[in-house]
């Protein structure tokens, strides 16, 4: 049972006017409130199931602005005839005659319409006698405009009046109201209900103490309220921040570096052979200009390692290593390039072992965009440079990370990457879908990589995980492109990263 007290002022003011079967438009006419206020009140009452409304389309005929003008000033053709009632007149004399008679003047368009109509009906003759004169005919004297005038005071459908643009057909959507018993009861209550309920608490009330004498209207607190828009970080960036947090908590230092690199850093320092299929044009974005960059002195050592293994105990790949090939500029294909650069920082003394590094950042692959491929995406990169590190630790770090990402188990499968040995494919168990999902590659860097970059052979655990693939399911996407389509409604309404 709805209490009269909980009704909004607008509802209470509208309530007495409501009758069974009344149209909303009629209600609006009768009410002192603004149209929108009445509509709102009815909407609220309907939400409370005190009444119901049914849409009704009503057809009405109304005066146009021209029609209203004719009603007020008199039909232009009637005025025209009055002006020449006694004497034929030239067009230029008409308005002064009308003024004399105390009638409204004819505007140029009214003049045109009148002449046309009157001629057509044979109410005037046009006489050319040293100028053009209009003369009323016998029919004109008898002319009767009652029917048209009646239409102007009470517009109904009329072909001629519509054609002349005096009357228009108006289709209006209206609502017919059906009331409930409860509403009738409330209406009775409303009669006896006098109160000093107020809608809003104001600073004045607080200052004057008037708040003590009023009662506050109770709200329907269960009703929906309109949405608001907020400032927000991009949801992908929020999950990236979270991943960074995990690595920081695990004692990792964040790496940074350029996206444009020489192939040297991206592949050669990582012992990827120069004729490796992955180097072919289709996988890598090369830079047009500047086409090549400068190589650090380290290249001499890298060349040796590729050709014959250098001092690493490896046979190397054999063949000739080309400096020109390695000097080409490209967009990094993996953030492992940063790992290579940070290993060298250990040699330079910038960092000390044991050291742990991570980055979550962009990498690029020259692929066509489709639902499971992006040409620009993020990689979760990590390395552990620790003389005591081993394959079990690698699984430990991965399991720790993925556990915090909501995956319950991690599985390692054999894989192949030119710069790690052993190489590991990382599968994680998705407890919601009950399946294993492949989410990245990992391994222990080859001595050809570590000895060359650090100067001593130390096991370096390394991983590169697909960031987008880790989060895409959380946000309910199937298509990776949806992560970066920047639809504002999506950015505004996307659920929070709650991990």
């Amino acid at each position: 049972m709805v209490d009269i007290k909980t009704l909004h002022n607008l509802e209470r003011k509208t309530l007495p006017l409501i009758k069974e079967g009344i149209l909303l438009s009629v209600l609006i006419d009768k009410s002192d409130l603004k149209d929108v206020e009445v509509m709102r009140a009815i909407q609220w009452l309907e939400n409370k199931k005190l009444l119901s409304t049914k849409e009704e389309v009503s057809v009405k005929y109304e005066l146009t602005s021209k029609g209203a003008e004719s009603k007020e000033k008199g039909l232009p053709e009637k005025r025209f005839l009055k002006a020449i009632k006694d004497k034929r007149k030239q067009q230029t004399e008409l308005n002064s005659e009308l003024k004399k008679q105390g009638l409204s003047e004819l505007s140029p368009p009214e003049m045109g319409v009148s002449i046309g109509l009157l001629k057509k009906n044979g109410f005037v003759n046009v006489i050319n006698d040293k100028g053009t004169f209009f003369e009323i005919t016998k029919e004109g004297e008898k002319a009767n405009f009652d029917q048209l005038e009646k239409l102007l005071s009470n517009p109904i459908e009329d072909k001629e009046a519509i054609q002349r643009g005096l009357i228009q057909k108006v289709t209006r959507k209206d609502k017919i109201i059906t009331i409930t018993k409860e509403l009738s009861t409330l209406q009775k209550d409303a009669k006896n209900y006098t109160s000093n309920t107020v809608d809003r608490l104001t600073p004045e009330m607080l200052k004057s103490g008037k708040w003590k004498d009023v009662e506050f209207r109770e709200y329907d607190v269960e009703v929906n309220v309109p949405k608001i828009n907020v400032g927000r970080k991009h949801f992908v960036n929020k999950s990236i921040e979270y991943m960074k947090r995990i690595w920081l908590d695990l004692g990792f230092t964040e790496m940074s570096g350029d996206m444009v690199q020489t192939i040297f850093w991206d592949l050669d320092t990582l012992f990827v052979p120069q004729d490796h299929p992955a180097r072919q044009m289709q996988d890598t974005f090369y830079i047009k200009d500047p086409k090549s960059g400068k190589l650090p002195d380290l290249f001499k050592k890298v060349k040796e390692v590729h050709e014959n293994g250098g001092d690493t105990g490896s046979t190397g790949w054999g063949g000739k290593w080309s400096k020109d090939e390695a000097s080409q500029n490209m967009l990094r294909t993996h953030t492992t390039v940063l790992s290579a650069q940070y290993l060298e920082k250990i040699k330079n003394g910038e960092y000390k072992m044991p050291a742990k590094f991570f980055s979550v950042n962009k990498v690029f692959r020259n692929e066509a965009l489709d639902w499971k491929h992006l040409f620009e995406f993020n990689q979760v990169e990590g390395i552990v440079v620790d003389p005591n590190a081993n394959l079990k630790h690698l699984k430990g770090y991965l399991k720790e990370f993925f556990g915090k990402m909501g995956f319950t188990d991690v599985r390692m499968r054999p894989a192949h990457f030119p710069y790690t040995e052993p190489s590991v494919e990382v599968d994680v168990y998705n407890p919601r879908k009950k399946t294993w999902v492949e989410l990245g590659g990992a391994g222990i860097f080859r001595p050809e990589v570590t000895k060359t970059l650090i100067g001593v052979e130390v096991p370096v655990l390394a991983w590169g995980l697909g960031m987008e693939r880790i989060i895409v399911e959380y946000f309910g996407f199937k298509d990776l492109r949806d992560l970066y389509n920047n639809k504002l409604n999506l950015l505004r309404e996307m659920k929070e990263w709650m991990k």
Partner: protein
Amino acid sequence: MPTVTLNRKVFEKLIEKKLPIEKLKDRISMIGTDLEDITDEEISVEIFPNRPDMLSEQGFARAFKTFIGQAKGLSKYDIKSSGEKVIIDKSLQDVRPFTACAIVRNLDLDDEKIREIIQIQEKLHVTYGRNRKKVAIGIYPLEKIKLPITFKAEKPEDIIFQPLEGEKEIDANEILEQHDTGKKYAHLLEGKKKFPVFRDANNKILSMPPIINSHDVGKVDLNTKEVFIECSGFDFDVLHLALNMIITALADMGASVESMILEYSDKKKITPDLTPRKMKIDLDYVNKILGTNLGDKELKENLEKMGYGYEKGEVLIPAYRADILHQVDLIEDIAIAFGYENFEEIIPNVATTGQANSFEQFKEKVTNILVGLGYLETKTYCITNHQHQTYQMNFNAETIKLANSISEEFDTLRYWMIPSLLDVLASNKHQEYPQNLFEAGQVFKKGGTETGVLENSRLGVVICQNDADYTKIRQVLDLILNFLELKYEVVKEDHPSFIKGRCARIKAKGKKIAYVGEINPKVLSNFELDMPVAAFELNLTELFKLID
């Protein structure tokens, strides 16, 4: 990476075992191949590039058989000497100097076996052979050839034969110009004055590697019982390995393999030679890398499971394994034999201090201010469109273009942020206004770095609403700079992307760090935007240096 389709019946016959499907699936993925599909007839697997020896039913089954314990250690092959010769002429020196050859007899061919042989040849060409550049393989019915064989380089006009699937005899130049396969591989002989050619004792041409075989003697069919096989290229060891991969597969089919004498101008070689290579292995090193506690016996077992032999600290590496460069390569195989699934996870107690990148932290602080102001962050690509960054912005700039993008729409690296943000506005015209956005992203231009490309992180901010104007956007910029306690001056400076007289440059400590203003309606109309936009672009990299 190559996918091979294996005949499941042939495979099961070779491993002498039928495994339940789930077990089969599991073992295939745990041996280090990626299972694509499995049916009653076929197994499709992706073979990683380090294991070209597994690209055939026979090679795959050989590895699998020891892995599941159906056999152990080195596979034994009996190679007889044929005593036959291949004479390698020194004219090949700058052309294609090496070959490794063999004779295989007692082939009992059927359509299935022919398919298998073709598959081995094709897959090796594409992968280990690097599309025939590194290794080109030829297989010829021995019945049609008179031994000995000569390998030499000749002038193209002297090499005249009917190429495989060709209509008539033509010369080498015509083959490269007219024949489909000739055209496809012509680049491999580019710039050579002489082309390599195999001829038999009757001077009949067998083939012109790495391009094509002859139509007469270059094709194996159901009647073929004996074949001559050659691999040609630039590195003898590589060719020998490829040859070993092929002949061991043929031997596993039941054929018998015979060696040949290769008479190089300066030395003699005999191939194939399946004597295993020896490599020392350090058990402590193995256990250190894997975190295991294996003894010598377990080491031996695990190595034998992967098809190796082991004797007193030395590993005997099969002569078809091309991927063992260092003992870590053996360690990986030991790990595979041990079972990747059997390594438990350990979180080691290594004391290191986590350290966030200070610039990244700075960026986060600045963007947090914008979130507080009710701005929405977007995330767009660094790879964008040149026209879009310049012409559409009524602005000229030398952007960094990509050499080989497969998409015309994405041909250049981002020069500045505002175009990316205008793009987002343009694709959201039906969404609620105001649309106030920001993004901190990487921009690229020429500069004096190692690569010659200078990267900066820049913050773009746009206000897009009915009454977007200079004051509103300046207030935001002022707020950020004041929070950073940076002294700066605002200097009137026009920019073609902004309305004349409504654009300013921000300078601090002599550096220009930002543009701010109302976007030129010409630009807005280029983006088909019908709502005013005020924007600023702030160089965060530069700013960070100033406040540091």
